[in-house]
């Protein structure tokens, strides 16, 4: 039988907030949970560090890579021809 300690309420809160940080960064959390995450981050060094890293990732991923190709322009004509051929 396992004798592992159950997480304390504070640890549970930390785990919950940590799992939601990516969506706190992209501002898609609802109002109440957003306030809860913000309150925890203010007093948690680990979450504060993680938030800084996630904001950097957000900036990096939020813009296309410098060498990312643009979407091809001739795809629509090809697809319309394919659709018309099958009608």
């Amino acid at each position: 039988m396992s004798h592992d300690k159950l997480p304390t309420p504070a640890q549970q809160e930390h785990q919950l907030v940590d799992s939601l940080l990516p969506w706190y960064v992209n501002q898609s959390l609802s109002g109440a949970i957003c306030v809860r995450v913000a309150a925890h981050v203010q007093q948690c060094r680990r979450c504060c560090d993680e938030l800084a890293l996630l904001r950097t990732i957000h900036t990096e991923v939020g813009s296309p890579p410098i060498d990312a190709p643009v979407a091809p322009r001739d795809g629509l004509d090809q697809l319309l021809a394919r659709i018309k051929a099958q009608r």
Partner: protein
Amino acid sequence: MNQSLLIQEEAEEDHYIEAAVQSPAALSTWTDHENRDLVRKVVGRGEEALTAFTLLYRRYQPPVFAFCFRFLGDRGHAEDVTQEVLYTVWKNAATYQGHAPVKTWVLGIASNLCRNMWRKERRREERLLTLPTDTSLHGHSATGELVLATFHAEPLERCADASASCEANDRHRLLREGLGKLSPTQRGVLHLAYFEGLSLREMAQVLGICEGTVKSRMANARRTLRHHLEHAGIC
């Protein structure tokens, strides 16, 4: 509804569609309600179906291509899958049930087809690796050097070639390298969260998995990136 009012609304909508066809930039202002109307018209397969599909294509081709490219890391594969995604939108428009925004539905199709493509390529790569003596199946570089067919995040790794411009920001460069080390599914979740700005629930809908699994994938991606940065002494 009053018949004349209905006719007037339809005329206004047609006018809006015509204007949008001539000015693709106008598409960016379309709401999900308008996108749903377009899907309905595509389902109808009537005269206006192709016009409606054209608008959907212009609206969704760039984000679908961006997602596919981030997921697959290969331009050719991303183009092929993007075409298949949009063809599926045409073919399966009737299956759209309206529970989620149109964009979520379209990105869900993209996610499925990207995963299929990735698996197919991985199997192909594994088959090639089990055929060590048959060099005819392998490609050759411009210098004639034998190159084993691979499937990797080339555009992200290519950043190393541009080190001169990247040296000014080690963290930025290392982060890009770290992104290249992620699995396609991990890159996919980061893209959906930070390029598309989707919520946890929307991501679960797009990926067809539960919210807990989205969190796990995200946690794995974060762990891999942090490990990479820590290893480089940055984090």
